[in-house]
């Protein structure tokens, strides 16, 4: 017997949990403007997330999926993208969405049960949040195919979780992307849990990055709590894609510090000690420390940032809370380019009865 194929999986971390840089830290690490921008957005994202959970708890928002602990992974991905690239996210990547120009009000509208939350004023070509797990990976591959066919200098990026890597759509997307050298990056945000299923029970695969191997595309694992590592490797992957070298898979390892959603109670299935341990390596601590060590950040700036973030979030919340219900007709008017005449009776029926059905919830 001879070995006819050989694979290895690499791991990258530039900032350790204490914010100490490694020797091979990339140029990005000295671009303090970029780092400060990302740190500010990570902080705003966290303030927003805390507020959204409170809104849910006080009955002002529907079920909400927190992004606590994922800020580096999410912001890092989108910060590496160009505005005319396309993002196909799942449902908790607010750091990425905000970075792309989606507004906090839009995110709240979505979780508040209002379709207008997916009609982004900013990134008009980005896909909306995607609840059916991993289906969006194929949309990213398809978007990349459109860019390739039209000869455009654009890339697509999808984001799914560790659980999503078990779905067929995830493999199908990587396979076509490999076969056609599509300009797409598949991001897996491995937060160790898929609701109650720990990663060890999700797969026997030692890493999720190695799932790229069978698709014939490169796969790499990065510390998802290290925003420098995330952004650096997504930038490299996008560069490759733009050079016609095809797709990549990047696994960003992080941890879901929150319950799965506000409808979940994670104390049923995981130990508090595990969560506490993960809290000590969460992503904001290290980048803040690093920026302080560089001398570009201090307590005073931090206080101002938190105040500004709170004000921004409050303004977005006010706008959300004052958005009137969508019109009844809106459930019909966006179904087709033109609502079929033979179905107009249904539309009129709904309008006639509009608002008369009490909320039978509970």
């Amino acid at each position, binding site marked *: 017997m001879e070995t006819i194929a050989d694979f290895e999986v690499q791991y990258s971390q530039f900032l350790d949990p204490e914010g100490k840089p490694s020797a091979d830290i990339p140029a990005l690490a000295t671009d303090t403007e970029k780092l400060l921008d990302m740190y500010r957005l990570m902080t705003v994202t966290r303030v927003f997330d805390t507020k959204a959970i409170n809104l849910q708890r006080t009955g002002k928002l529907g079920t909400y999926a927190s992004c606590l602990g994922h800020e580096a992974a999410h912001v890092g991905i989108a910060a590496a993208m160009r505005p005319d690239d396309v993002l196909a996210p799942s449902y908790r990547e607010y750091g990425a969405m905000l970075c792309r120009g989606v507004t906090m009000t839009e995110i709240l509208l979505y979780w508040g*049960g209002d379709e207008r939350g997916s009609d982004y004023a900013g990134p008009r070509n980005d896909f909306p949040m995607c*609840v059916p797990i991993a289906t969006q990976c194929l949309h990213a591959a398809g978007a990349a195919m459109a860019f390739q066919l039209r000869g455009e200098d654009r890339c697509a990026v999808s984001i799914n979780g560790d659980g999503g890597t078990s779905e067929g759509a995830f493999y199908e997307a990587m396979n076509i992307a490999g076969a056609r050298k599509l300009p797409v990056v598949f991001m897996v945000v491995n937060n160790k849990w898929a609701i*109650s*299923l720990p990663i060890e029970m999700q797969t026997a695969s030692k890493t999720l990055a190695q799932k790229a191997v069978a698709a014939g595309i490169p796969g790499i694992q990065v510390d998802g709590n290290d925003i420098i590592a995330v952004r650096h490797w997504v930038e490299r992957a996008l560069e490759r894609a733009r050079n016609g070298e095809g797709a990549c898979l990047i696994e960003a390892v992080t941890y879901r510090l929150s319950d799965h959603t506000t409808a979940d109670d994670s104390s049923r299935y995981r130990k508090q000690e595990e969560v506490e341990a993960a809290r000590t390596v969460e992503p904001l601590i290290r980048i803040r420390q690093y920026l302080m060590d560089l001398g570009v950040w201090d307590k005073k700036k931090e206080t101002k940032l938190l105040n500004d973030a709170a004000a921004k979030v409050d303004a977005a919340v006010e706008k959300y809370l004052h958005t009137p219900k*969508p019109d009844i007709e809106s459930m019909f008017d966006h179904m087709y380019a033109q609502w079929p005449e033979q179905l107009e009776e249904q539309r009129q029926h709904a309008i006639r009865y509009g608002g008369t*059905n009490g909320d039978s919830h509970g």
Partner: protein
Amino acid sequence: MAEVTLIDALTMAMAWELEHDPSVVVLGEDVGVNGGVFRATAGLQKKFGVDRVQDTPLAEGMIAGISIGMAAQGMRPIAEIQFMGFIYPTVDQIINHAGRMRNRTRGRLTCPMVLRAPFGGGIHAPEHHSESTEAMFAHMPGIRVVIPSSPTRAYGLLLAAIRDPDPVVFLEPKRIYRLNKQDVEDNGKALPMDVCYILREGSDITVVTWGAMTFETLKAVDQLARKGIRCEVIDLTTISPIDYETILESVQKTGRLVIVHEAARTCGVGAEIAAIVAEKGIYDLQGPIRRVTGYDVVMPLFRREMDYMPSVGKIIDVIQESLED
């Protein structure tokens, strides 16, 4: 006897069958340690172990496919799909295999499996969590589609579904999972599938419905009763195959038919009921058959979901209209 909710009754039925039939296995996403996102399988893994009650990786096509594989080899899997909105990857397996295995092997291999899924709107759920697409499964030959609407029927029908030698898609109206309680005796007694259940007897008009809509329908009918209108309310219960006889007999008596369902109107199960009554009972009818249904639109997100649903008011109006024919 215990006072239990619909969802408790499902747990009881699964526990009974796990206890009494070693070939029964429960599987699905988050059904083990977590006991299911709605808690339908709460406590089962603790009681019966990780082999009998299994958390699976996240892949619905896989869940359906391995259930078929197990069922064809002598097991009786009860697979949970977390929400009906995520059932679509199973359709390939269900239509191309579960519904055909017996026929294409001339009975050599069979598929005694249950695919459970919560469905329907009205609980402020996120996107893709509120649809009612039972008609899609009713259209597939070779499988049964069952929808319980009370704790008693949930218990008896789930037992029947598990014991049935053929595949059953068992759809659970999640809005009424905890709406009311009934005394349900945990005695392992199944209730018959393939038959309708008559919830109210009456001679003025027949109203056929199922799932959570039985509640709106009964409220409407009770209000009409105060005006002296006697409606016969039939809970279809087994969506496929449909027990036409009970419906036709009722229409023979009342001469009028209204069908109420939460699912979209076009090609909903109501259309099939209307067709069969038109074929076999048209001379009994004193006026047109009418439907109260969801609209032919994507289920709105929750700020408008109640405007999508058939309401007590809509049902009353249509019944009264029918009585004027």
